[in-house]
């Protein structure tokens, strides 16, 4: 029990505390234990801070701004406060001096874009397995299921490595939180990887019917796994992602289909599927179609009316170079000319761009 618990601080005690007239100064910490790591637990259970008034008594007391001073004597007239705020916050005009950045950049490092790519391949190849089964090419479907698993397996370790506290990765599965795309994504990745593993195991054990059913289930979860990454980015305050909210998830789906098909074509050709085989033809068509869709979606998104307000990061710095290099016919000069106009006032405009480009899913 702390020595001065609830004492309210008599004059003598305050003297003592100040080290004035003899007596040792009590410096028992209110929280934690001396010499131990910081904690929110009290050193002495139930102990209060010295001189505490409790019940927020300190906060209600002010010699400067009581009701009897001229700090805030008048009641506001109706609508006065609201209209003042609307006047200062509204409108399209941005003041000359903007102190920024307004938002913090994402802290994610290379693991996350790599995961986006691998997760895309896994999703795309689960679709391919479904397609092969539907078309009756069960041996290619088997390969596709293995590609799915191979792409899904490194995903979880990559994501764990990106955590600030990797040892606590299981906290991700502590709750099921439909509101948070990352929580849903973590659950989805777990289910997807397990189903993909079970499907391959069924294949190995020769239970092809079970494998097909599990493969279909994998593809079902793939519907979310391939799109949630785009949802996750679109649900941040980063303007270039948030303003692309309708386009970003479909772009991720398109690149997933393209990279998944490409990976399967690579593996199938390497394992001796002859060119001209309908599965290879189909894979080529999927790839072409998905890439065309991706191109249409991203250029449509970037050329949308009003995009000048948020697309600045796509044109500048390193992201600008990456995106610009991918854009057909892009030249440095054209990029320089495309510098955006005045940023809009409707949402936060960060001074630093996002750390990785918008279309990271398209690296494949």
């Amino acid at each position: 029990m702390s020595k001065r618990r609830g004492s309210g601080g008599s004059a003598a005690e305050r003297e003592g505390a100040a080290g004035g007239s003899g007596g040792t100064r009590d410096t028992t910490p209110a929280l934690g234990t001396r010499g131990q790591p910081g904690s929110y637990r009290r050193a002495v259970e139930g102990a209060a801070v010295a001189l505490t008034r409790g019940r927020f008594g300190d906060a209600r007391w002010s010699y400067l701004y009581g009701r009897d001073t001229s700090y805030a004597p008048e009641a506001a007239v109706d609508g006065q406060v609201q209209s003042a705020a609307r006047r200062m916050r509204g409108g399209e005009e941005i003041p000359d001096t903007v102190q920024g950045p307004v938002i913090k950049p994402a802290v994610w490092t290379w693991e996350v874009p790599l995961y986006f790519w691998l997760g895309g391949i896994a999703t795309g190849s689960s679709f391919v397995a479904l397609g092969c089964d539907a078309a009756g090419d069960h041996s290619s479907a088997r390969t596709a299921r293995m590609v799915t698993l191979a792409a899904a397996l490194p995903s979880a370790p990559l994501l764990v490595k990106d955590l600030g506290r990797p040892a606590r990765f299981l906290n991700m599965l502590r709750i099921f939180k439909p509101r948070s795309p990352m929580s849903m994504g973590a659950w989805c990745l777990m289910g997807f990887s397990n189903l993909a593993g079970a499907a391959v195991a069924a294949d190995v054990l020769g239970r092809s019917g079970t494998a097909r059913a599990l493969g279909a289930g994998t593809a079902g979860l793939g519907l979310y796994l391939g799109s949630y990454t785009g949802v996750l980015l679109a649900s941040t305050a980063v303007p270039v992602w948030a303003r692309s909210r309708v386009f970003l998830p479909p772009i991720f789906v398109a690149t997933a289909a393209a990279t998944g098909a490409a990976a399967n074509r690579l593996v199938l050709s390497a394992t001796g599927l002859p060119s001209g085989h309908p599965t290879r033809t189909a894979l080529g068509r999927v790839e072409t179609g998905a890439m065309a869709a991706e191109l249409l979606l991203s250029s449509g998104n970037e050329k949308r009316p009003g995009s000048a307000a948020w697309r600045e990061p796509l044109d500048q710095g390193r992201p600008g170079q990456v995106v610009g290099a991918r854009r057909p016919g892009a030249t440095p000069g054209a990029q320089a000319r495309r510098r955006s106009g005045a940023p809009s006032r409707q949402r936060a405009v960060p001074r630093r761009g996002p750390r990785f480009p918008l279309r990271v899913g398209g690296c494949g």
Partner: protein
Amino acid sequence: MSAAPTEIAIHREGAERMGFFTDTTVCIGCKACEVACKQWNDLPADGSVFRKGMSYDHTGSLGAATWRHVRFVERLAPSAAEREDAASRLAAGGGGGVPSLPVDGGRWTGDGGRGTVDSPGDLDLVALAESGAGEEEGSGGVDVAGAVAQMDRWLFMSDVCKHCTNAGCLDACPTGAIIRTEFQTVFIQPDVCNGCGYCIPSCPFGVVDRDKIDGRAGKCTLCYDRLQDGLEPACAKACPTDSILFGPYDELVDIARRRVAELHARGIDGAYLYGAGDEPQDQLAGGLGAFFLLTEAPERFGLPAQAESPIQENAPVATAAGLGAALAAAGAVVATFVLSHRGGRRR
């Protein structure tokens, strides 16, 4: 106004929404709040850097270890319109930005400061200082119009986590580390956070960040530990001017509204509340638990003019678009395979 009751993770008899009202018009930029916060919460310094020629503010910005940050807003040269207004009012003998000074065509005539002040409320310290210096009559007066035109104002704003009603960080957190307490504040449980970093770009105000050494996300707790003991937060306790007022939310909003009215009555038309008292369609993130009285556009303080929890705003639309696209893609892939095989067999 309050958070969704289902979101409140901790329940306690008699607890109500507590918040901050930070009035920038009385802040003196002493940074006592910043220091008190660091002391109470055992936070390391983030280093002291003067951005070259930019500012006297040397403590950077809010971050994982800086939970209160006093922003200095400097080099606010008066706008052309303000300058013209001051000049014309001076020309008319009105005194412009420094009312009731005896002026003549924009020159301070200087009569020793006696008998020129209309009322005690108009006491002008610059004028008094000038006269007190014992300057002799006519020895080249002060160019008031020029002084007004060159006057740089200096503003301070003690920035902090806004404890939003619709908190983007809380919506994003996949581990449930970020909770709403019984005081309806937003609190990161340090023993649960695994440093995934999703809350960071999800905060529309750029408040929360991941600590480079510790690996966890950090931000103002509204001194949750102190609140549980009925103590006011360390920053509010330390603030010598009561620029930071802490109290029950509704009381604070009432004081803040009165303060705006008072400032308007004193001619400071630009005074407004950032984050409280708005109509529903104008609210910032559903209303801010820690709100501010500002006299300049929010962007000058590095604050967004509009803000909403990005997840509540975007996730439903984006999920619908994503799932729709995924269904279409899966269907297209299956169709391509089936058609290719049929065509292949026919050939």
